[in-house]
């Protein structure tokens, strides 16, 4: 379906994208985050991504759990349906939504408490099922909304604002996603839009289960010395693997790099991911290597960011289920109801 868009009063400098939408069409309600919260930067990156990808806002469904991070879908893509579900269980709701209508783009937004603490099971199972989606964790190492308790991604030995030392092993959601079979795994930093936006674009065009762990400092409860999720700490320990450019059919592909410094990967939809390597040895198509690399760098106290892994031809849950094209939800009575004739046969077989 196409519709004539009603003209809105826009700031003249807001240029429309290929579909005629301006950036403002991808904005949402006014944020209620604390000033400086990393989550707001991620919202901004998402707005930019969707705008630049010429996405129809209503073809996106955005789902989240509960937390400051999970509130953020209210603050972007105001013309998309959103669903703020229950704490830690967004993955199942998103899975169900995806089953009902394979034609929309699914964006899951979650927090580290939401996905690594209460939601760990659902997170892991969604990854292993091949649900087609972009799953973003806005990772600040604490429960923001309940005022600063450690979440399960808090590093062992890191200190809370009140000075308490965390004694539990940290969960690395990227490592877990890799282990569970996610087909696109990346890590980024809310403070680095230049890295984050291309990753988001690649994730949206990936066509399988795309997971991005975005370090997103909580300025109110976890931005102090002793935290390993503060702006300062993440900046200092950021070990970026690669930088990404993404080219679509319409784009002219610029190719003037030193040999060996870039790798191009063609995605299932024909788009090309160009990886500018920042580490010689790293190619993000080797899952086992990715897992090892993550662990080794973590042991050195480094935070690996960039595209960690991707499978360019992912299989999805719908592929496995062999479902029809189009939304199951809109199938009509005719497709769904086998009628009295079949019922007669069934009755006969039951006598």
């Amino acid at each position, binding site marked *: 379906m196409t519709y004539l868009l009603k003209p809105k009063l826009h700031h003249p400098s807001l240029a429309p994208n290929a579909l005629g939408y301006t950036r403002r069409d991808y904005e949402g309600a006014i944020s209620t985050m604390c000033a400086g919260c990393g989550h707001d930067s991620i919202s901004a990156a998402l707005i930019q991504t969707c705008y630049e990808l010429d996405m129809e806002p209503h073809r996106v469904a955005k789902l989240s759990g509960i937390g400051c991070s999970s509130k953020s879908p209210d603050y972007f893509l105001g013309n998309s*349906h*959103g669903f703020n579900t229950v704490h830690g269980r967004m993955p199942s709701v998103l899975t169900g939504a995806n089953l009902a209508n394979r034609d929309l783009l699914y964006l899951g937004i979650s927090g580290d408490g939401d996905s690594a603490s209460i939601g760990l099971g659902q997170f892991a*199972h969604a990854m292993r099922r091949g649900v087609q989606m972009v799953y973003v964790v806005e990772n600040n190492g604490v429960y923001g909304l309940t005022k600063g308790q450690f979440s399960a991604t808090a590093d062992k030995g890191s200190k809370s604002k009140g000075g308490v030392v965390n004694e539990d092993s940290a969960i690395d959601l990227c490592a877990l996603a890799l282990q569970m079979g996610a087909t696109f795994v990346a890590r980024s930093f809310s403070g680095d839009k230049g890295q984050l936006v291309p990753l988001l674009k690649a994730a949206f065009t990936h066509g399988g289960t795309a997971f991005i762990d975005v370090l997103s400092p909580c300025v109110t409860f976890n931005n102090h010395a002793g935290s390993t999720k503060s702006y300062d700490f993440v900046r200092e320990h950021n070990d970026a693997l690669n930088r990404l450019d993404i080219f679509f059919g319409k784009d002219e592909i610029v190719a003037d790099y030193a040999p060996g410094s870039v790798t191009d990967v063609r995605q299932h939809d024909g788009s090309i991911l160009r990886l500018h390597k920042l580490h010689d040895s790293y190619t993000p198509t080797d899952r086992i290597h990715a897992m090892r690399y993550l662990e080794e760098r973590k042991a050195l106290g480094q935070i690996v960011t960039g595209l960690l892994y991707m499978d360019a031809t992912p299989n999805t849950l719908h592929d496995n289920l062999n479902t029809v094209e189009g939304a199951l939800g809109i199938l009509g*009575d005719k497709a769904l109801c086998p009628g009295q004739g079949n019922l007669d046969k069934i009755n006969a077989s039951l006598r």
Partner: protein
Amino acid sequence: MSTTIKPLQRTNDFVVKFANVNGSGSASANGLFARAILRMGVPASARNIFPSNIQGLPTWYEVRISGQGWLGRRGGVDLMVAMNPQTWDRDLAEIEPGGYLFYDSTRELPKSRFRDDIFILGIPLTAICNREYTSPRERQLFKNVMYLGALAFLLGIELAVIDQLIADQFASKQKLIDANYKAVRLGYEAARTQVGAPIGLHVERSDAVGDRIFIDGNAAAGLGCVYGGATVCAWYPITPSTSLVESFTDYCKQLRHDPETGRANYAIVQAEDELASIGMVVGAGWNGARAFTATSGPGISLMQEFLGLAYFAEIPSVLFNIQRGGPSTGMPTKTQQSDVLSCAYASHGDTKHVLLFPQDPKESFDFGALSFDLAERLQTPVFVMMDLDIGMNEWLVDPFRWDETRGYDRGKIMTAEMLEAGKDFGRYLDVDGDGIPFRTLPGTHPARGAYFTRGTSRDPYAKYSELGSVYQANMERLLKKFRTAASLVPAPVVHRAQQETNAGILYYGSTSEPMREALSQLEAQNIHLDAMRIRAFPFNDEVYRFIAEHDFVFLVEQNRDAQLKTLLVNEGEIDPSRIVSLLHYDGSTITAKFISREVASRITASNVKPMKKVAS
């Protein structure tokens, strides 16, 4: 054998019980037995009594043959087929005086292990098997088929009927068919030679079965979901609900693939647990699919948080609760109606949920299909409250019918066209005065109709709000919607007593069939009761009227705490002393005998005689 005891003489009216060992392959032979009775036109009902275990523990199959058509459990046993040495004593004790014991006489047993007021029918099944078969697997399997043959002789079941059943079952596998024929005949002959003559229990051809079908409630409900247009099923295995999803899967494979592409018009996902299965259902319901899950008590407990979300965010969703013995893991293979409260008021905070109570597999099919219309019309979770007795036992019921003129009721969905036409859309706006707002489906329109769904308070336009007045207005609208529901759910069914009476009796679900028989037994004792079968919550006004019309009413339930009475009293503001609870909750199927005994004792005890109605 004491000479004073006469052997029972009954035609088309007796109970046969098979005592077996779990995993020994007896289920198939026992099922053939019940079906053979039905094929002879004689009504019968059958029940599995099985342990929470896979192999090696006692299991029973109880068949009631009733030419009069009483399909509830009768209680007592006229013929015990005692194939399990573990439960020998217990099984023997159950036989009615004058009844019969059928057993494998290969190994001799001392006299003391028998009773002298019953008739013993020993056939050396194991010996014959050992003689006829070599593989242990065959020896075990055909022993079962053999006793079927023996029973055919003893009870007068036509061999041709059994042959046909075997032929139907094994389709074109002639070798299997022949082997089974042979085993049946071995048993038949052994009985003829060892016992000599048929016994006093007799099956006589009749035409009382009509066009009825024999099916279990889970299979029927699964089929109901296919007919009801369900496209998404998310579930987690749990006894006794698992076979409902298996049925849905099988029927979907048969009936729901696109004829051109061969692709599936449905999606079935085994979730990692019940929190995820209900989450998927909620997600799919939000996104426009007819979605359901099937579970039992523990699953219902795990789904509580999501049920509150679905209630408050108003997401259509369907749950089949095949109730088993609670609380906790309880008695997972026994039957109860004990999740009424945990479903009706599921979740923290103030909530009320729609429940349907099918009486048998037929209604499991009907309500199964209907539940999706109700869920979408009311935009709320709908529970189909079955139980193990309905779900996992095969019942003789009327054949399924589908009204071809009926279309699915998708409820109030605001379309792109309506939005384009400028229709005002407020997700939680009560535009029609029935408490039911319009919803849009994700993806409808690029610039209008999108809203943010949440479990927190918000205004009629779905905007977040913490204002007390806004919250309260919304909560009151939900109450109004619930009142609307009362007029949409299946109305109660009334059986008037033959005489005017001041007493009534209420019941629901699987109690229905024994109730029919109990009412006739009570009538024979000159106790007359108007009877009403409740089919849904919220209660139709008729229910309250029925209670008001009578001086007092009985309410039969299969739980300890009179849970439906709680709902009735609470929602209808009814004086609890006017409702006398009859509670059966030991996990076994309730019987007519139990009901009529309990009613009779109370009618006598309280010295209340059925009187003329006070007002009509």
